[in-house]
């Protein structure tokens, strides 16, 4: 017997069960994108940090929080540290207040804040977009794109490329083994390994091309290209009234931030390290 509870799920909009995750992908995208742009105008370290904190709080409510944090934390740390350290090499005339001296390498306060400001726009933008991409599965994105008129061929390409990478990796391992087993050395010095490169790469490419032909035929057998309106077994909730409102607020906020950034933020003493 088929689990009826499982089947019943297809009779309703697909639900993740959390407020943020269940927003329509379009809503999530517009909100995230509008917010993501603001640290770029602000160019202010505490604003960028604030965005990251708020985004993290939203992410905490998501089912996909693990994916978000594992990526966002890396991006945050790498970009911030990189910019902070690099900026301390070669100073400008505005750098006057000494911070620390590491074995003769002088760090300045102005440079530190300057680099944090720079980092804040990259990090603020990235972390916000990471929220969108890690909490919105690709198939949700393609579903919404199809609803908005994008062809399902395009959806297929986007969705299958992920699976293709997984499959290709598995095939590469087999091919590698197969060439080892016939005597091609794959370990040892660089020349030996370089010699093994072609015999493993070529079957992979040829195999991928052949697979494509079969895949086309298989999809065709599933009426993939039939020119009729498609139906969807797995459906997402359409954009709700309040979601439209959220998007509107996000757009207004974005426009407001342009004004605020250039007229007010830059004048505040705490941000004026350039």
């Amino acid at each position, binding site marked *: 017997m088929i689990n009826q509870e499982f089947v019943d799920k297809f009779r309703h909009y697909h639900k993740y069960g959390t407020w943020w995750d269940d927003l329509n992908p379009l809503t999530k995208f517009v909100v995230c994108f509008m917010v993501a742009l603001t640290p770029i105008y602000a160019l202010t370290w505490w604003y960028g940090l604030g965005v990251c904190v708020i985004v993290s709080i939203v992410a905490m409510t998501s089912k996909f929080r693990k994916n978000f944090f594992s990526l966002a934390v890396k991006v945050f740390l790498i970009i911030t540290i990189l910019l902070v350290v690099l900026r301390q090499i070669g100073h400008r005339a505005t750098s006057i207040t000494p911070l620390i001296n590491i074995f003769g390498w002088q760090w300045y306060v102005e440079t530190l804040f300057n680099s944090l400001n720079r980092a804040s726009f990259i990090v603020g933008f990235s972390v916000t977009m990471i929220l969108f991409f890690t909490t919105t599965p690709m198939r949700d994105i393609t579903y919404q794109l199809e609803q908005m008129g994008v062809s399902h061929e395009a959806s297929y390409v986007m969705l299958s490329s992920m699976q293709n990478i997984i499959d290709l990796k598995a095939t590469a391992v087999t091919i590698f083994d*197969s060439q080892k087993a016939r005597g091609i050395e794959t*370990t040892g010095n660089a020349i030996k390994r370089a010699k093994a490169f072609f015999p493993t790469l070529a079957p992979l490419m040829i195999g991928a091309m052949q697979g494509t032909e079969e895949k086309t035929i298989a999809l065709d057998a599933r009426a993939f290209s039939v020119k009729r309106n498609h139906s969807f077994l797995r459906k997402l909730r359409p954009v709700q009234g309040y979601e439209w409102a959220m998007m509107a607020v996000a757009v207004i906020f974005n426009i407001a931030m342009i004004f605020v950034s250039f007229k007010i933020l830059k004048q505040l003493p705490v941000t004026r390290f350039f």
Partner: protein
Amino acid sequence: MAIELKKVSFSYPNGFEAVHEVDLRIEEGEKVAIVGQNGAGKTTTVKLMNGLNLPSSGDVLVDGINTKDKTCAFMSKYVGYVFQNPDDQIFNSSVRKELEYMPKYTKMDTKEMNRRVERAVELTGIQKYIDSNPFDIPYPIRKFVTIASIIVSDPKYFIFDEPTAGQDLHGMKQLGYLIDELQKEGKAIITITHDMEFAVNNFTRVVAMAHKQVIKDGTREDTFWDLDVIRESRIKQPVIAELAHDLGVDGNVLFCDELVAKL
């Protein structure tokens, strides 16, 4: 001289154990079929024989050499392995180039190379495809190209993984022929197969595997008439054996003439 598996277990990096304490010894010049369901550990076991898999515990010795001490490419001089899917191996633009690839890689002398290539082509029956692009020839023939390329390397032990898939009667006969010829040269042939008719017609020793272990290692009569083993390894008796069993004919009949004689 032999391939010896001594209490060999193998686990994948993710911790999944695919083979558990297998003992198996294959002598030079033997013909052995390994049968059993997918997941029984057949492919993992044969990959232990050429060092593609290294035992998690226990030892694998090939003519006294422990596979742990050498690379897989080194072991290929002793043990030739023909993969199930020829497309994982072939990459040259002609069959001849494919066959000459390894000899040239090992800088073999041209005369010897030509002699070996000629022999391999004769054994596999691919004369008429020798100058073709491997990808223009039918899949079952491509399989013979990979077999030929391993024959050229002249190992002592041959492993074939599912050689019969997609083969027609002609292909089956060619396989039977090359296995016999290789054995006459003193080679050992180890074959994984799902095709019980192929197993019974070409192999005198049949190893049955189930649940990560060898559950029977005996003559074809022993293995195919051990009904518990048949059930446990979820294989089928060859058709004539099944018919003899249904008719209540005794004497572990496997072949048509035997059955006819008994009726």
